[in-house]
Protein backbone atom coordinates (compact mmCIF):
# COMPACT_ATOMS: atom_id res chain seq x y z
CA UNK A 1 0.00 0.00 0.00
CA UNK A 2 1.37 3.42 -0.86
CA UNK A 3 1.83 5.67 2.07
CA UNK A 4 -0.06 8.91 2.41
CA UNK A 5 3.18 10.78 1.77
CA UNK A 6 3.67 8.95 -1.52
CA UNK A 7 0.14 9.84 -2.60
CA UNK A 8 0.64 13.53 -1.71
CA UNK A 9 3.96 13.57 -3.57
CA UNK A 10 2.35 12.00 -6.64
CA UNK A 11 -0.54 14.50 -6.58
CA UNK A 12 1.92 17.38 -6.24
CA UNK A 13 3.81 16.21 -9.30
CA UNK A 14 0.56 15.90 -11.25
CA UNK A 15 -0.45 19.39 -10.10
CA UNK A 16 2.84 20.92 -11.18
CA UNK A 17 2.69 19.20 -14.56
CA UNK A 18 -0.88 20.43 -15.08
CA UNK A 19 0.09 23.97 -14.06
CA UNK A 20 2.99 24.07 -16.49
CA UNK A 21 0.83 22.65 -19.25
CA UNK A 22 -1.91 25.24 -18.52
CA UNK A 23 0.57 28.12 -18.58
CA UNK A 24 2.02 26.97 -21.86
CA UNK A 25 -1.44 26.45 -23.34
CA UNK A 26 -2.69 29.88 -22.23
CA UNK A 27 0.48 31.67 -23.24
CA UNK A 28 0.14 30.46 -26.80
CA UNK A 29 -2.74 32.72 -27.82
CA UNK A 30 -1.09 35.62 -26.06
CA UNK A 31 2.06 35.08 -28.08
CA UNK A 32 -0.05 34.79 -31.22
CA UNK A 33 -1.85 38.00 -30.29
CA UNK A 34 1.46 39.78 -29.88
CA UNK A 35 2.68 38.50 -33.19
CA UNK A 36 -0.55 39.72 -34.80
CA UNK A 37 -0.15 43.30 -33.48
CA UNK A 38 0.81 45.82 -36.17
CA UNK A 39 4.52 46.16 -36.61
CA UNK A 40 6.03 48.85 -34.44
CA UNK A 41 7.26 50.73 -37.50
CA UNK A 42 3.79 50.95 -39.03
CA UNK A 43 2.24 52.25 -35.83
CA UNK A 44 4.98 54.81 -35.45
CA UNK A 45 4.52 55.99 -39.01
CA UNK A 46 0.81 56.54 -38.38
CA UNK A 47 1.65 58.44 -35.23
CA UNK A 48 4.22 60.38 -37.21
CA UNK A 49 1.69 61.35 -39.86
CA UNK A 50 -0.72 62.50 -37.16
CA UNK A 51 2.06 64.57 -35.64
CA UNK A 52 2.92 65.98 -39.06
CA UNK A 53 -0.64 67.20 -39.58
CA UNK A 54 -0.34 69.09 -36.29
CA UNK A 55 2.91 70.60 -37.50
CA UNK A 56 1.30 71.47 -40.83
CA UNK A 57 -1.52 73.30 -39.06
CA UNK A 58 1.11 75.58 -37.55
CA UNK A 59 3.23 76.01 -40.66
CA UNK A 60 0.23 77.14 -42.67
CA UNK A 61 -1.01 79.55 -40.02
CA UNK A 62 -0.68 83.17 -41.13
CA UNK A 63 1.98 83.91 -38.48
CA UNK A 64 4.23 81.40 -40.27
CA UNK A 65 3.16 81.17 -43.88
CA UNK A 66 2.95 84.93 -44.44
CA UNK A 67 6.73 84.90 -44.79
CA UNK A 68 6.92 81.60 -46.71
CA UNK A 69 5.49 82.99 -49.93
CA UNK A 70 6.18 81.91 -53.48
CA UNK A 71 6.05 85.48 -54.74
CA UNK A 72 8.33 88.49 -54.53
CA UNK A 73 6.45 89.95 -51.58
CA UNK A 74 5.54 88.98 -48.03
CA UNK A 75 1.98 88.88 -46.75
CA UNK A 76 0.44 90.26 -43.60
CA UNK A 77 -2.66 89.84 -41.50
CA UNK A 78 -4.84 86.83 -40.84
CA UNK A 79 -6.32 87.27 -44.32
CA UNK A 80 -2.78 87.01 -45.69
CA UNK A 81 -3.03 90.04 -47.92
CA UNK A 82 -0.04 91.37 -49.78
CA UNK A 83 2.30 93.42 -47.60
CA UNK A 84 1.54 97.10 -48.01
CA UNK A 85 3.90 99.93 -49.00
CA UNK A 86 5.28 98.08 -52.03
CA UNK A 87 7.50 95.91 -49.89
CA UNK A 88 9.32 93.32 -51.98
CA UNK A 89 11.41 90.25 -51.29
CA UNK A 90 14.78 91.48 -52.55
CA UNK A 91 17.72 89.27 -53.46
CA UNK A 92 18.25 87.87 -49.95
CA UNK A 93 14.70 87.95 -48.61
CA UNK A 94 15.39 91.12 -46.63
CA UNK A 95 13.87 93.71 -48.94
CA UNK A 96 16.01 96.14 -50.90
CA UNK A 97 18.13 99.12 -49.96
CA UNK A 98 15.79 101.94 -48.99
CA UNK A 99 13.02 99.47 -48.27
CA UNK A 100 14.49 96.71 -46.13
CA UNK A 101 12.53 94.60 -43.69
CA UNK A 102 14.61 96.36 -41.06
CA UNK A 103 13.33 99.71 -42.29
CA UNK A 104 10.40 99.07 -39.97
CA UNK A 105 10.79 95.70 -38.23
CA UNK A 106 13.12 95.92 -35.26
CA UNK A 107 14.56 93.26 -32.95
CA UNK A 108 11.38 93.10 -30.90
CA UNK A 109 7.71 93.93 -31.32
CA UNK A 110 6.83 97.60 -31.13
CA UNK A 111 3.42 97.35 -29.53
CA UNK A 112 3.00 101.10 -29.23
CA UNK A 113 3.05 101.44 -33.01
CA UNK A 114 1.76 97.97 -33.92
CA UNK A 115 4.91 96.85 -35.70
CA UNK A 116 5.89 93.21 -35.28
CA UNK A 117 9.58 92.57 -34.80
CA UNK A 118 12.09 89.83 -34.16
CA UNK A 119 15.75 89.08 -34.65
CA UNK A 120 16.82 89.17 -38.30
CA UNK A 121 13.32 89.73 -39.67
CA UNK A 122 13.25 88.36 -43.20
CA UNK A 123 11.38 86.21 -45.69
CA UNK A 124 11.98 82.49 -45.90
CA UNK A 125 13.91 81.52 -49.04
CA UNK A 126 11.90 80.59 -52.10
CA UNK A 127 13.06 76.99 -51.67
CA UNK A 128 10.96 76.94 -48.51
CA UNK A 129 7.86 78.45 -50.09
CA UNK A 130 4.73 76.84 -48.73
CA UNK A 131 2.35 78.51 -51.14
CA UNK A 132 1.76 78.68 -54.86
CA UNK A 133 1.98 81.78 -56.99
CA UNK A 134 -1.71 82.47 -56.31
CA UNK A 135 -0.99 82.67 -52.58
CA UNK A 136 -2.77 79.39 -51.88
CA UNK A 137 -1.23 77.14 -49.22
CA UNK A 138 0.58 74.13 -50.64
CA UNK A 139 -0.71 70.67 -49.79
CA UNK A 140 0.40 68.90 -46.65
CA UNK A 141 2.44 66.50 -48.78
CA UNK A 142 4.15 69.31 -50.68
CA UNK A 143 5.05 71.27 -47.55
CA UNK A 144 6.33 68.08 -45.92
CA UNK A 145 8.52 67.34 -48.93
CA UNK A 146 9.97 70.84 -48.83
CA UNK A 147 10.60 70.71 -45.09
CA UNK A 148 12.38 67.36 -45.32
CA UNK A 149 14.39 68.08 -48.46
CA UNK A 150 17.85 68.98 -47.22
CA UNK A 151 18.68 70.57 -50.55
CA UNK A 152 15.93 73.10 -49.82
CA UNK A 153 15.93 73.48 -46.04
CA UNK A 154 19.50 74.67 -45.46
CA UNK A 155 20.65 71.11 -44.88
CA UNK A 156 18.60 70.54 -41.74
CA UNK A 157 18.20 66.94 -40.62
CA UNK A 158 15.75 65.83 -37.94
CA UNK A 159 17.64 67.25 -34.96
CA UNK A 160 18.30 70.39 -36.98
CA UNK A 161 14.60 70.83 -37.71
CA UNK A 162 13.76 70.24 -34.06
CA UNK A 163 16.29 72.87 -33.00
CA UNK A 164 14.84 75.25 -35.60
CA UNK A 165 11.35 74.76 -34.22
CA UNK A 166 12.56 75.05 -30.63
CA UNK A 167 14.91 77.99 -30.86
CA UNK A 168 14.72 80.03 -34.07
CA UNK A 169 13.70 83.54 -32.99
CA UNK A 170 11.30 84.06 -35.87
CA UNK A 171 9.63 80.71 -35.13
CA UNK A 172 9.28 81.70 -31.48
CA UNK A 173 7.89 85.07 -32.55
CA UNK A 174 4.76 83.31 -33.84
CA UNK A 175 3.77 82.70 -30.21
CA UNK A 176 4.62 86.24 -29.20
CA UNK A 177 3.34 88.17 -32.20
CA UNK A 178 2.52 91.40 -30.39
CA UNK A 179 -0.24 93.87 -31.00
CA UNK A 180 -1.75 95.10 -34.22
CA UNK A 181 -1.79 98.84 -34.90
CA UNK A 182 -5.35 98.91 -33.51
CA UNK A 183 -4.07 97.54 -30.20
CA UNK A 184 -5.59 94.06 -30.47
CA UNK A 185 -3.37 91.00 -30.17
CA UNK A 186 -2.30 89.11 -33.28
CA UNK A 187 -3.55 85.54 -33.32
CA UNK A 188 -1.01 82.82 -32.51
CA UNK A 189 -0.86 79.41 -34.28
CA UNK A 190 -3.41 76.73 -33.31
CA UNK A 191 -0.97 74.80 -31.07
CA UNK A 192 1.10 76.08 -28.19
CA UNK A 193 4.82 76.19 -28.83
CA UNK A 194 5.30 73.26 -26.44
CA UNK A 195 2.72 71.24 -28.37
CA UNK A 196 4.38 72.19 -31.64
CA UNK A 197 7.78 71.04 -30.40
CA UNK A 198 6.29 67.84 -28.97
CA UNK A 199 4.62 67.10 -32.32
CA UNK A 200 7.93 67.73 -34.06
CA UNK A 201 9.65 65.26 -31.72
CA UNK A 202 7.04 62.58 -32.41
CA UNK A 203 7.26 63.17 -36.15
CA UNK A 204 11.05 62.95 -36.13
CA UNK A 205 10.99 59.84 -33.93
CA UNK A 206 8.67 58.24 -36.48
CA UNK A 207 11.18 58.92 -39.23
CA UNK A 208 9.67 62.20 -40.51
CA UNK A 209 7.00 60.53 -42.66
CA UNK A 210 5.19 62.61 -45.27
CA UNK A 211 1.60 62.04 -46.44
CA UNK A 212 0.90 60.94 -49.96
CA UNK A 213 0.11 63.68 -52.44
CA UNK A 214 -3.32 62.20 -53.13
CA UNK A 215 -4.19 62.18 -49.42
CA UNK A 216 -7.53 63.79 -48.64
CA UNK A 217 -5.71 65.96 -46.15
CA UNK A 218 -4.50 69.16 -47.66
Amino acid sequence: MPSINSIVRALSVILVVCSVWSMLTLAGPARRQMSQKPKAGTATRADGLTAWEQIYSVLTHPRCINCHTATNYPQQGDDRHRHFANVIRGPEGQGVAGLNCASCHQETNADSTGLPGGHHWHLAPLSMRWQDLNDQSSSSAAVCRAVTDRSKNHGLNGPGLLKHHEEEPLVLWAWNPGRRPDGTMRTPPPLTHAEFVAATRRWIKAGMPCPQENSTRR
Partner: protein
Amino acid sequence: MATYELNVNGQRKQVNVDPSTPLLWVLREELKLTGTKYGCGISACGACTVHVDGIATRSCVVPVSLIGDRPIITIEGIGNDRVGRAVQDAWVEKDVVQCGYCQSGQIMSAVALLKTTSKPTDANIEDSMGGNICRCGTYIRIRKAIKSASVQLK
Protein backbone atom coordinates in the same frame (compact mmCIF):
# COMPACT_ATOMS: atom_id res chain seq x y z
CA MET B 1 9.45 108.60 -18.97
CA ALA B 2 13.00 107.46 -19.54
CA THR B 3 16.26 109.05 -20.54
CA TYR B 4 17.95 108.04 -23.78
CA GLU B 5 21.37 108.92 -25.16
CA LEU B 6 21.05 109.14 -28.93
CA ASN B 7 23.75 109.52 -31.56
CA VAL B 8 22.17 111.91 -34.03
CA ASN B 9 24.17 113.23 -36.97
CA GLY B 10 27.37 112.46 -35.12
CA GLN B 11 26.36 114.26 -31.94
CA ARG B 12 25.34 112.81 -28.59
CA LYS B 13 21.87 113.96 -27.63
CA GLN B 14 20.02 113.21 -24.42
CA VAL B 15 16.26 113.08 -24.36
CA ASN B 16 13.78 112.30 -21.62
CA VAL B 17 10.66 110.84 -23.21
CA ASP B 18 8.15 108.04 -22.94
CA PRO B 19 9.78 104.81 -24.21
CA SER B 20 6.97 104.29 -26.70
CA THR B 21 7.56 107.63 -28.43
CA PRO B 22 8.32 107.14 -32.12
CA LEU B 23 11.77 108.29 -33.15
CA LEU B 24 10.15 110.79 -35.52
CA TRP B 25 8.64 112.76 -32.68
CA VAL B 26 11.84 112.67 -30.66
CA LEU B 27 13.68 114.17 -33.63
CA ARG B 28 11.08 116.77 -34.37
CA GLU B 29 9.76 117.76 -30.96
CA GLU B 30 12.68 117.11 -28.63
CA LEU B 31 15.64 117.80 -30.88
CA LYS B 32 13.92 120.28 -33.20
CA LEU B 33 15.20 118.50 -36.30
CA THR B 34 12.11 119.24 -38.33
CA GLY B 35 13.50 118.28 -41.74
CA THR B 36 12.12 114.77 -41.19
CA LYS B 37 8.41 114.86 -41.94
CA TYR B 38 5.30 113.21 -40.60
CA GLY B 39 3.25 111.79 -43.43
CA CYS B 40 1.09 108.79 -42.66
CA GLY B 41 2.30 107.57 -39.27
CA ILE B 42 2.10 103.91 -40.36
CA SER B 43 5.26 103.55 -42.46
CA ALA B 44 3.27 103.64 -45.67
CA CYS B 45 4.59 106.83 -47.28
CA GLY B 46 8.30 107.16 -46.47
CA ALA B 47 8.23 110.85 -45.57
CA CYS B 48 9.75 110.12 -42.15
CA THR B 49 12.74 108.15 -43.47
CA VAL B 50 16.03 108.54 -41.62
CA HIS B 51 19.08 106.28 -41.47
CA VAL B 52 19.55 104.11 -38.39
CA ASP B 53 22.88 102.36 -38.51
CA GLY B 54 22.89 102.89 -42.26
CA ILE B 55 19.45 101.39 -42.83
CA ALA B 56 16.76 103.63 -44.27
CA THR B 57 14.25 103.53 -41.42
CA ARG B 58 10.67 104.70 -41.08
CA SER B 59 11.01 106.77 -37.95
CA CYS B 60 7.26 107.13 -37.41
CA VAL B 61 6.87 103.49 -36.34
CA VAL B 62 10.09 102.84 -34.44
CA PRO B 63 9.86 103.61 -30.72
CA VAL B 64 12.87 105.44 -29.37
CA SER B 65 13.36 102.62 -26.85
CA LEU B 66 14.40 100.28 -29.68
CA ILE B 67 17.13 102.53 -31.11
CA GLY B 68 19.88 101.78 -28.62
CA ASP B 69 23.28 103.14 -29.54
CA ARG B 70 22.82 102.82 -33.29
CA PRO B 71 23.80 106.04 -35.07
CA ILE B 72 20.99 108.09 -36.58
CA ILE B 73 21.44 110.28 -39.64
CA THR B 74 18.68 112.69 -40.63
CA ILE B 75 18.23 114.93 -43.64
CA GLU B 76 20.05 117.64 -41.67
CA GLY B 77 23.16 115.47 -41.50
CA ILE B 78 23.14 113.52 -44.75
CA GLY B 79 24.98 116.29 -46.62
CA ASN B 80 28.11 115.51 -44.60
CA ASP B 81 28.28 112.18 -46.39
CA ARG B 82 29.82 111.95 -49.88
CA VAL B 83 26.86 110.06 -51.33
CA GLY B 84 24.40 112.26 -49.48
CA ARG B 85 26.05 115.39 -50.82
CA ALA B 86 25.96 114.05 -54.38
CA VAL B 87 22.26 113.18 -54.09
CA GLN B 88 21.36 116.59 -52.69
CA ASP B 89 23.33 118.29 -55.48
CA ALA B 90 21.56 116.12 -58.06
CA TRP B 91 18.20 117.01 -56.52
CA VAL B 92 19.00 120.69 -57.03
CA GLU B 93 20.43 120.13 -60.49
CA LYS B 94 17.33 118.27 -61.68
CA ASP B 95 14.99 120.61 -59.83
CA VAL B 96 13.22 117.61 -58.37
CA VAL B 97 11.20 119.29 -55.68
CA GLN B 98 7.68 120.58 -56.15
CA CYS B 99 5.94 121.03 -52.79
CA GLY B 100 8.86 119.34 -51.08
CA TYR B 101 7.06 117.65 -48.23
CA CYS B 102 8.17 114.11 -49.10
CA GLN B 103 11.59 115.01 -50.41
CA SER B 104 13.68 114.55 -47.30
CA GLY B 105 12.41 110.97 -47.14
CA GLN B 106 13.01 110.53 -50.86
CA ILE B 107 16.60 111.69 -50.52
CA MET B 108 17.26 109.42 -47.54
CA SER B 109 16.01 106.40 -49.46
CA ALA B 110 17.94 107.40 -52.58
CA VAL B 111 21.15 107.64 -50.57
CA ALA B 112 20.53 104.20 -49.08
CA LEU B 113 20.07 102.83 -52.59
CA LEU B 114 23.25 104.40 -53.98
CA LYS B 115 25.31 103.20 -51.04
CA THR B 116 24.57 99.59 -51.98
CA THR B 117 24.01 99.91 -55.73
CA SER B 118 26.35 102.37 -57.37
CA LYS B 119 24.75 102.08 -60.82
CA PRO B 120 21.06 101.44 -60.19
CA THR B 121 18.82 100.37 -63.03
CA ASP B 122 15.30 101.67 -63.46
CA ALA B 123 14.08 98.49 -61.77
CA ASN B 124 16.43 99.03 -58.83
CA ILE B 125 15.13 102.56 -58.43
CA GLU B 126 11.50 101.46 -58.61
CA ASP B 127 12.08 98.74 -56.04
CA SER B 128 14.01 100.87 -53.58
CA MET B 129 11.95 104.02 -53.94
CA GLY B 130 8.63 102.17 -54.07
CA GLY B 131 7.92 102.92 -50.43
CA ASN B 132 8.32 106.68 -50.84
CA ILE B 133 5.17 108.36 -52.05
CA CYS B 134 5.07 111.77 -53.75
CA ARG B 135 1.69 113.36 -54.24
CA CYS B 136 3.19 115.89 -56.64
CA GLY B 137 4.33 113.04 -58.88
CA THR B 138 7.99 113.97 -59.09
CA TYR B 139 8.98 110.38 -59.72
CA ILE B 140 10.49 110.97 -63.14
CA ARG B 141 12.74 113.74 -61.85
CA ILE B 142 13.65 111.61 -58.84
CA ARG B 143 14.81 108.87 -61.16
CA LYS B 144 16.86 111.31 -63.22
CA ALA B 145 18.44 112.78 -60.11
CA ILE B 146 19.41 109.36 -58.78
CA LYS B 147 21.05 108.47 -62.07
CA SER B 148 22.79 111.82 -62.17
CA ALA B 149 24.13 111.32 -58.66
CA SER B 150 25.28 107.85 -59.68
CA VAL B 151 27.32 109.37 -62.50
CA GLN B 152 28.76 112.02 -60.21
CA LEU B 153 29.85 109.37 -57.73
CA LYS B 154 31.89 107.35 -60.24
